[in-house]
């Protein structure tokens, strides 16, 4: 079955959705959407360097993303600019340098569109292995740092005062973000990765009663969008990566529109429950 390119596409897409769901929740909670964007834009520089130095593309993208994160932390200390201005600066300058570097490499034919918008149908068995192993490691590490990271998201002061060392969890989280971008680049491309992080989490918000539940629902929304996107790509011959993102948008709209109804049902249910408790 692994020989079938369609099966590999579905498997790879679902694997990436499982990783981006929980991480995306933190991106939404911590308001890091632009940070994710910056890391993924700089990924193209990683691609250029990988081709130039003839190393693995995922590895190069991962290294560049980590360096971007560190550069941001350093620039925050020294540059008199707000975080979002710094992010914009890093995002677009690295994207520009990456594009220039690629244009110079006339000896290789680079499928630029594939990197920008993903090439999910070209996933090979090695990619699947990377998604599987890398994803497992990312999720396990996230599970370990979940409590301090979440506490620091709610209140960094409480987390620090009560001895959770949130700084360490935040640096590890940045490395996890870099890994996810390297892993999922091939599915939706560098320009659309942030969508896979934010939209599942945003759609899951209104159904969720706890942060852990939201992470789980985000995974389910992500998987559903991969299936819908790839299916439409097959039947309507639309580009796969953008189709996944369009499916996400659809799911987000549906979840937002159904929110008031869900809220009222929930209220009814919780009222009944509390009456039950009283009697």
């Amino acid at each position, binding site marked *: 079955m692994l020989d079938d390119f369609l099966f590999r596409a579905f498997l790879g897409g679902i694997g990436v959705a499982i990783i981006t769901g929980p991480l995306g929740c933190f991106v939404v909670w911590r308001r890091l959407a632009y940070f994710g964007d910056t890391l993924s834009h700089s990924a193209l520089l990683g691609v250029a360097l990988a081709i130039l130095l003839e190393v693995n593309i995922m590895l190069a993208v991962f290294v560049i993303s980590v360096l971007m994160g560190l550069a941001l932390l350093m620039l925050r200390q020294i540059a008199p600019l707000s975080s979002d201005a710094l992010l914009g600066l890093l995002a677009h300058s690295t994207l520009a340098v990456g594009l220039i570097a690629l244009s110079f490499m006339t000896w290789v034919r680079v499928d630029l569109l594939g990197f920008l918008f993903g090439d999910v149908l070209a996933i090979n068995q090695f990619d699947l292995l990377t998604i599987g192993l890398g994803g497992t490691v990312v999720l396990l590490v996230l599970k370990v740092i979940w409590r301090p990271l979440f506490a620091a*998201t*709610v209140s960094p002061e409480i987390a620090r005062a009560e*001895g959770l060392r949130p700084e360490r969890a935040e640096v590890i989280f940045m490395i996890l973000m870099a890994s996810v971008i390297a892993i999922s680049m091939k599915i939706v491309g560098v320009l659309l990765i942030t969508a896979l992080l934010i939209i599942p*989490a945003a759609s899951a918000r209104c159904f969720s009663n*706890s*942060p852990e*539940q939201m992470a789980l629902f985000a995974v389910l929304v992500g998987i559903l969008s991969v299936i819908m996107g790839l299916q439409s790509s097959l039947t309507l011959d639309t580009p796969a990566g953008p189709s996944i993102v369009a499916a996400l948008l659809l799911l987000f709209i549906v979840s937002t529109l159904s929110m008031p109804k869900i809220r009222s049902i929930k209220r009814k249910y919780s009222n009944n429950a509390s009456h039950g408790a009283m009697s």
Partner: protein
Amino acid sequence: MIKSDSSTLIELKNAGVKRAGKWLARGITFSLHAGEIVTLIGPNGAGKTTSAKMALGLLDLDEGTALQKSELRVGYVPQKVSIDWTLPLRVKRFLNLTGSCSETEINAALAMTGTSHLLNSEVNTLSGGEFQRVLLSRAIAKKPELLVLDEPVQGVDNSGEEAMYNLIETIAKTLNCGVLLISHDLHFVMSATTHVICLNGHICCSGTPRAVSTSSEFRTLYGSKISANLAIYEHMHDHTHATDGSIVKLEEMAENSKDNKEITTNA
């Protein structure tokens, strides 16, 4: 932050923090032992929160030393906690924020602050007063050795304030923990306070509060404001602050005003 093993929970020695060349607080020295209640008072920007954060190890010191008992269990209620709407967070999960609590611990902590009915409410939907109590419940759920409360009565009316102080006193007795309390009220402190420290960039004066019940003139003056759990703190300042915050000794000030008078008579 140095860790020590003595009975002292936290201790600051001549501690100071500087931001952009300006001292937020300087020369802060105090210690807190188990069972003690220390109240920090002072005007806005006096460095109360800064001092508490120095003691908690939340700020790196530019001067002096901070000691903390090793493995100290801290319960912290910051001045401000804002929870983003994107966070689906119920009270029960919020109490498990920094460590996992058993059902019994959660129920006991909520019962103590009278918020048991909020167990399954979303934190975002709570009123200011309810949230303040839930914050307190969270801080005490793991039975801390040190409870740090940054203006716990802010935005609470007089009767609510009295109830809150009652509650803090009960908690301190029940848990037998040390309490570091920050208050913006310059004249009234909790009567259970062991030690009051008045700050204005540095320690202006410190001492013990005077029991209100013994002074009838204050009773007539403030009437209902005074309750059994409040005490009056009499400041013993030997200096005052000029408008730019610099220190003016009281004797100097007396002399200055004398000079001014002479000028006036000359004119």
